[in-house]
């Protein structure tokens, strides 16, 4: 039984500058009888932003949610192929899903802060991990909030309910919560779809700042957003990964005609 040995989340810092941190190999996925992903192959580079684009129902969210095994909650799910983190198969036998998720922060489509104080929201990943030392928690809250560019706005009301924040602030709080355990990869599932343009711009700035520290995989509906913030872009269609490459190539000189049709707005 090969268990992935993760270092304690609060201490691991060593992140080499380049090379793939996540690779998806011949990945297929079925929801019951219907196949949702066909034979996907992709490598996600360390410290870069990778965008997944494609029309609705093409499987980009499904693929994203496979990366931290959130799809385990779905009944009747079946997979085939490999997803590896630093060479370990995350769907392999004996994998500690909880440890995996601690390595992969996730931000959802709609802001989902818990009904707790701002402070408790951010320390949640640490507290479920058993960290109780006040100094570590305080330090983490400040670092995470600063990384999420929220520190200045909320530093005086950390003990107030997180539900009192605006939508954009809540989403940044969720980003702060995702980076609190200092993960390696940030998974973002359409992080701006519930936000107005100004809040969206702030989140995009934030993504710009966070890359380098974290490898970011984001699903987006907006091609403009993908073009603005991502280094690499994957275009998916009907469960297949049509094309994957650096963003500039995908948007200006795609190899496949279908990609060209989509990015130029001919369909989708």
């Amino acid at each position: 039984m090969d268990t992935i040995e993760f270092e304690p989340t609060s201490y691991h810092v060593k992140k080499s500058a380049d090379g793939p941190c996540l690779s998806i190999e011949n990945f297929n996925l079925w929801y019951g009888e219907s196949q949702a992903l066909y034979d996907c192959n992709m490598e996600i580079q360390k410290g870069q932003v990778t965008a997944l684009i494609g029309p609705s129902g093409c499987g980009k969210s499904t693929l994203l949610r496979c990366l931290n095994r959130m799809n385990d909650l779905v009944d009747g799910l079946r997979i085939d192929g490999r997803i590896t983190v630093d060479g370990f198969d995350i769907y392999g036998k004996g994998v500690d899903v909880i440890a995996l998720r601690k390595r992969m922060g996730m931000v959802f489509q709609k802001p989902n802060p818990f009904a707790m104080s701002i402070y408790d929201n951010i320390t949640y990943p640490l507290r479920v991990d058993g960290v109780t030392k006040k100094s570590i928690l305080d330090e983490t809250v400040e670092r995470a909030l600063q990384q999420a560019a929220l520190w200045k706005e909320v530093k005086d009301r950390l003990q107030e309910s997180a539900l009192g924040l605006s939508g954009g602030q809540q989403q940044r709080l969720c980003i702060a919560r995702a980076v609190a355990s200092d993960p390696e990869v940030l998974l973002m599932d359409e992080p701006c779809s519930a936000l107005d343009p100004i809040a969206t711009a702030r989140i995009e700035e934030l993504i710009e700042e966070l890359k380098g520290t974290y490898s970011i995989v984001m699903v987006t509906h907006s091609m403009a957003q993908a073009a603005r913030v991502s280094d690499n872009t994957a275009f998916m269609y009907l469960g297949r990964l049509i094309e994957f490459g650096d963003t500039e190539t995908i948007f200006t000189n795609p190899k496949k005609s279908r990609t060209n049709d989509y990015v130029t707005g001919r369909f989708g």
Partner: protein
Amino acid sequence: MTSLNEQMPPASGAAGAAGVAAKDAVKRRRVRRFSADLSAAGEPALWGFGGALALGIILIAGFLMMVLYNGATTFWPKPIDRIELSDGSVIAGVERRGTIFRPDLPRLDPEIRAEVEANDGFAYRTLYQTANFDLYGDDFQWVADFETESVSQPDDFYYFERQTWGVFVGRIAGMQIAGQSMDYDPTVFAREQRAARARFNEIRQIERNEIGRLNHLIERERLNQRRALLRQGEEAAAPEIAASQERIAELQAEFQVLQARVNEIRALDQSYRVTLEEVGGRSIEPEISQIVRFFPANTIGFTDKLGIYFSRWWEFVSTEPREANTQGGVLPAIFGTVAMTLLMVVFVAPFGVITALYLREYAKQGRITSIVRISVNNLAGVPSIVYGVFGLGFFAYTMGGTIDQLFYPESLPNPTFGKGGILWASLTLALLTVPVVIVATEEALAAVPRSMREGSLACGASKWQTIRYVVLPKALPGIMTGMILAMARGAGEVAPLMLVGVVKLAPALPIDGFYPFIHLDRSFMHLGFHIFDVGFQSRNSEAGKPMVFVTTLLLLSLIVAMNATAIIVRNRLKRKYATGQF
């Protein structure tokens, strides 16, 4: 609605091309037909729904008003009427209620008969509480209007509430203070009555607390002897039994001292008496200590009436019943109801919530879980008496019987847990109300958004941590709502309790000063059963009737109070978890 439809044709006409007149006409006709169709507009249905709601509200409001009015007025002091009847006799009593009836015509005087016949054979009669049960053998008397010669309200009539024999209505003819006969003097009598009541309460206090404690200790020694005998055999236990006998002898000496003191007070009490004379001239001479409360019903002022009103309420909620529950208070019943309900919540809350958690969060959703779910829902519809039978058979006889054999063999054949008791009653009610809690909890859990759970899981929380820190706090107000519903149902349930532990008159409360302080094996009194017993099972249901309303009012207020408390707690929790700590 109609006006909107009427506006439509011109609007559509303006929008449509002016040249297409025929098409326009067709459109206009269709719109007009629609607006004319009453059933399509749904108006009659609306009236029906509104009417049904109004009817329901009127019925409930009417019921509550009736209980409130009758309950609130019962303790108000009423005047005493002195009625001279046409046959020459005289009665005195408090008017209770009036009704029309059909007198037995052939037995009436020709003159009265003509009058009654003119009235279609009906006459009016009034029920008087003549009281004085010890002299008359009845508390009430019907008096027809045509028998009544005159009605007056003499100033010297008093209303006495007595410790035994119920109410006495009549005059005070004289009194005997410390053996000395003397004329009635209101100040002296009022003072002596208070002193006599103090003596009475002292006797009670000694008998109940001190002698009660001795009895308890003696009984324990006796049980210890039996236990030693059962466990060690006759010879081995002999020294222990001898020591125990010695202790019993000591206790009995103590008992003798107390008994002597009680007898002394009783002897003193005998020399303080009052002579009461009923309207017909017969008199009785009870001890003054027998008079619980007295007042000159026809001359008493408003302030004094108010005082009596509140003192009666206080007596009602703070003392024990007397006179077969038709007089006195209901404190043991209030205590029993609250204790049983709270105990039920203690059982039902964890059981229901854990079951629902498993069913909703852990069990694989499929055919078996839906069968379980349907069964749980159906359990809520089982008649409560069935639960009572189950509770008696399973809890009291089977479980209780086994407990008795294992832990209380010394008191057999007297059962300890092997009979109805507050523990078995609250377990039975917990079983009865657990479906309500399960259903409410399941709904509350299902209402927690998936995004919350995913957010928690994505943070690296385990499933249990997610449930514990995110799902349960979010679902807690909904769970509390289920608990409140269960509590309301449980507190008002009577039928199953009659089988598993409720009694007409409990000798002791389930909680007292004797080790182990909480006696879950004891039977208890319950307000719901009290209503049934006082109103419909007592020797004199007319006397108990006002108590039915007062007790109903009290039970309703108690349930409202318990629910209000639970709702306040729920709202507090809601606020607390909105800002939430671990």
